[in-house]
């Protein structure tokens, strides 16, 4: 952790994510009430009215409230989708890596199938056929992104299985299940975890894109729908799209910087051990 904060990427990334997290958690305190209800006059520009620091949209809804509650949605969906993708990927990757033979081949063909279809299109197809509730959106995004962690986990398992310490564990009579979970899995995790940061970023973007296209949950505030709503007044009130757009960009940047810093911190560890 301390090593992470020594890298410039780690510090900036961590700071951005901390702001995001606080915004999401503190949303009900900073902006009590439903962000989707009409709060004041329509199309107020930012920094003109102290009650609405970031202005209001075409229907008079508070932009700041939308931003804060949108942060919650982005975080919640992003994290939930990434977590599901990781867990599914880890399970399938471990199973393929250990089983070998036909089971490995079969599982890898399934992984291939999911990797070939572009993640966004898969999510789009899934949501448009099944529905627009938040759990469905989470599943849709996870389906598009679990294949990469699966492949990486399998590669890690295959490499680690050949190491002397796994042979040692077999020689002392350790049960294969114990070898899998105590010797192999903890050592297979680090690169897969590093991948998780990118998955979170992708999940957040996909969620925003889905709600931009009108396929998000209409009952909650999301950055994507805010950007969509601002399209019709893009010339006169560009701030309506730009502000949530900037928030989205900052969030993705923060996640990427954080994962860079994490990679450096972990990579450093590996190099020093030589």
């Amino acid at each position: 952790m301390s090593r992470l904060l020594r890298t410039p990427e780690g510090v900036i990334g961590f700071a951005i994510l901390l702001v995001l997290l606080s915004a999401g958690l503190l949303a009900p305190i900073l902006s009590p009430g439903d962000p989707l209800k009409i709060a004041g006059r329509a199309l107020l520009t930012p920094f003109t009215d102290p009650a609405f620091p970031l202005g209001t949209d075409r229907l008079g809804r508070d932009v700041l409230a939308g931003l804060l509650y949108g942060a919650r949605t982005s975080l919640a969906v992003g994290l939930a989708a990434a977590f599901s993708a990781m867990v599914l990927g880890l399970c399938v990757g471990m199973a393929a890596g250990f089983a070998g033979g036909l089971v490995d081949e079969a599982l890898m063909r399934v992984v291939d199938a999911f990797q070939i279809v572009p993640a966004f299109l898969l999510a789009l197809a899934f949501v448009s056929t099944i529905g627009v509730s938040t759990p469905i959106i989470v599943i849709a995004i996870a389906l598009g992104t679990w294949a990469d962690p699966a492949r990486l986990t399998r590669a890690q398992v295959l490499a680690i299985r050949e190491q002397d310490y796994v042979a040692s564990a077999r020689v002392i009579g350790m049960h294969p299940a114990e070898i899998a979970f105590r010797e192999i899995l903890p050592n297979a995790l680090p690169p897969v975890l590093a991948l998780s940061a990118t998955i979170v970023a992708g999940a957040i973007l996909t969620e925003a894109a889905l709600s931009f296209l009108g396929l998000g949950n209409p009952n909650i505030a999301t950055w994507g729908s805010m950007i969509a709503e601002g399209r019709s007044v893009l010339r006169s009130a560009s701030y309506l799209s730009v502000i949530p757009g900037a928030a989205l960009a900052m969030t993705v940047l923060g996640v990427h910087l954080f994962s860079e810093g994490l990679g450096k911190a972990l990579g450093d560890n590996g190099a020093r051990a030589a």
Partner: protein
Amino acid sequence: MIDTLLSIEDLSKGFSSSGRRVAALDNVSLTIAAGETLGLVGASGSGKSTLSRILLRLLAADAGSIRFEGADWLALDGAPLRRRRAHMQMVFQDPLAAFNPLATVSAVLDDPLRIHGIAAKNQRPGEIATLLERVGLTADHAARPVRSLSGGQRQRVAIARAIATRPSLLVLDEAVSALDVTVRGRILELLVDLQKEQGIACLFISHDLAVVRAVSHRIAVMDSGRIVETGPAAAVVAAPQSDAARALVAAVPRLVTDPI
């Protein structure tokens, strides 16, 4: 009559490499008596590592038999095999790669004690301390991560782990090759001591005849998957009969005070 602890008969193993079949082991036979050390020497590619991996059941043989402690060793599988593994242990060449990178010394020593029920949970720390002292380390090494120890210290932990289950046979595969010269002698002395004290038989595998000579009662020489010579250590070294043995004897570096 000395008991035969281990008897390997006509062991063979082949690998397919680019369409051709290569015999890594070709009808290898050898015996080890209880409490004796058999040194197995050969150049790289002679099959020594393949033999040790088949012996430790990490690899399957194509043909042949192994009798260990009077039972058919190759016929065992699953849980019965895991139980019997307590009697045959191994020390690997690379003291860094032989341990889980995340492990501490006490975790490493706890595993065999726990798996084979050698000591009850509350007695294990005491047993671990005893093991550490036996191999020349101290009890306060227990809490340290294995990665933080020196090569020689790690190899001592590896030996401690191997003797934790009180095996009757210890296989050492190039166990001192990766260690500094000044450390090597001490580890070899430790092994000889342990054998005297606990009567463990050893299969000491190396490409370095000088090291093997130091600790073995008998020596077997391997070349291209076959055993080409066996005999008492002193005899093999003084009067090598096979080409392979002669090459190994000639290749041992000697201190030369006056180079030409």
